[in-house]
């Protein structure tokens, strides 16, 4: 049983608990070529969004979102500017909480638990769901301390050196920085800084990595290195990437969600138009709006 086409307008919400959506079928080892055979994708659900509306004050930013994100899969969110894709991804780990007037209705379930449930500490949510931001944002500390700071605070003090090395190797930047760990992270190039930020995020071993346009400030070579890295990371992590670059979604993601701006009914809210396997979404989209967008006829 594969997750199929979940479209915001069409989905009929089942009342079954979401755990039924996962299977006990042992996960097939995810080959790099996993995209070839879509049936090999994991169907274990990490995020289950049900009728999610997001508001900023009285403004409806995202409307009627129903979407499931599967484990160890790279899920891309694409769409024109202002369609709410960044809002959605930041809603997943409560990074929007600090924005005045931010409000969510509907359910954002993470492994079946409501992310916005009462008694949920956003700090714990973010500890499990890491994030990489649009602009590389290393701390003004040494390269070593950029990685080691959070584990130290979270109580992962033993084997810190090994943890730092593992994270830097995991982010494919170890060879470039191993001789200058005590040097300032601000001295690194943009692409190195972004990989350092990814290393920093994986050093605390989260479950999910959210990447909000991680390559938009990078040149093509740095972009390629980050994309390559994502393919490695998906073996251990569930990745959600927001990108306004369709080619990037096509290159890295197994599943792609196309968001658009719905201007009907006198409001402008982001909606999920189509969500499918990347290959199908780009070659045989079922929605005219998706086809217009991916073929460049949009707007």
């Amino acid at each position, binding site marked *: 049983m594969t997750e199929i086409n979940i479209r915001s307008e069409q989905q009929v919400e089942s009342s079954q608990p979401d755990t039924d959506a996962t299977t006990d079928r042992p996960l097939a080892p995810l080959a790099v070529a996993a995209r070839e055979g879509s049936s090999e994708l994991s169907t274990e659900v990490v995020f289950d969004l049900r009728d999610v509306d997001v508001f900023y004050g009285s403004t409806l930013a995202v409307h009627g979102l129903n979407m499931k994100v599967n484990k160890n899969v790279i899920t891309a969110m694409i769409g024109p500017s202002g369609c709410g894709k960044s809002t959605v991804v930041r809603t997943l780990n409560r990074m929007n909480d600090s924005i005045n007037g931010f409000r969510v209705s509907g359910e954002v379930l993470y492994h079946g638990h409501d992310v916005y449930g009462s008694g949920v500490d956003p700090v714990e949510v973010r*500890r499990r769901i890491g994030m*990489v931001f649009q602009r590389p944002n290393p701390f*003004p500390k040494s390269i070593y301390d950029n990685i080691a700071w959070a584990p130290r*605070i979270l109580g992962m003090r033993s084997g810190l050196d090994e943890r730092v090395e593992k994270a830097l190797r995991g982010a494919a930047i170890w060879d470039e920085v191993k001789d200058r760990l005590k040097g300032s992270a601000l001295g690194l190039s943009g692409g190195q800084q972004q990989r350092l930020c990814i290393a920093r*995020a994986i050093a605390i071993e989260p479950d999910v990595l959210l990447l909000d346009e991680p390559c938009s400030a990078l040149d093509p070579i740095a972009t390629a290195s980050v994309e390559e890295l994502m393919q490695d990371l998906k073996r251990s992590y569930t990745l959600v990437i927001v990108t306004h670059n369709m080619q990037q979604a096509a290159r890295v993601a197994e599943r792609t969600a196309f968001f658009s701006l719905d201007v009907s009914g006198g409001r402008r809210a982001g909606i999920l138009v189509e969500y499918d396997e990347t290959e199908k979404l780009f070659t045989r989209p079922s929605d005219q709006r998706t086809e217009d967008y991916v073929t460049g006829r949009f707007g």
Partner: protein
Amino acid sequence: MSTPLLDPARPLTEIGGNLARRRRIDHFMRGGSMAAALFAVAVLGLLIATVVVHGASVISISFLTKDPAIGLGASGGGIASAIVGTVLLIVVATAIAAPLGVLIAIYLTEFATQRFARPIRLALDLLNGTPSIVIGVFAYSLLVVGGFHHQTGFAASFALAVIEIPLIARASGEMMSLVPKELRDASHGLGISRWRTILGIVLPGSLGGIVTGTVLAFARAGGETAPLLFTSSIFSGSTTLNIFGAAIPNIPVTILQDSESGFPSDHARAWGAALVLVVFILIGNLSGRVMLARQRRRYQAR
């Protein structure tokens, strides 16, 4: 209908139309504003020169290290007790004001919503604008009349702390808000709590600004006279560190009292004390400003 067309081929050096008049106005206004700016510098220069001319002759090692000579109009002696007293008063005041000011700044920049931040900022600005003599009367009624029943150095330090708090809070808050939001996001995204983010990211990033604001407030408190008149003006000439016991000798009140005296030797001592105070405050201000500029550059370079 309209002015005749200019000959575009005319040499550019040739002045046409009303340009000559407009040029004169331009020069005049430029000169006027420059003169006004120079005036401010000149006033400061003149002030410092006056203090130096009158005060420099009495400055000596013994002036800085000896207590005042005993006896009406006695010459000789120094202002050591007042120097020690002023430093003591503002050190205690800053020790009270700095933690409070930094905590206020943290609340304002990191926790408060606009609804709460705005009235608090307004209150800080009003407190900053409150005449220091009013703060002096307040400390007097609270601690001299109400608490100790006599003047104490602590009452003076309290009044000076009230003056310092808004300065430290605003300066620290300004530097904290210069710490990029992206760094806070990065920290929050790692599952770090807000307080640890403040300790690990925000405070280290704004430490220079906090120190600077504190140094500037320190210098400001050093020159305040009005609150001291109520709280620490009746003192003997000897050096004391007992801040809860009695009034503490200090430079501003020494200047006031010596300058009101009828004896020339007291006048000379007042000028000398004024010179010491001006130098002290200039050093504080300049070092504070140098540090502030360095901090700003560091963040704007990012």
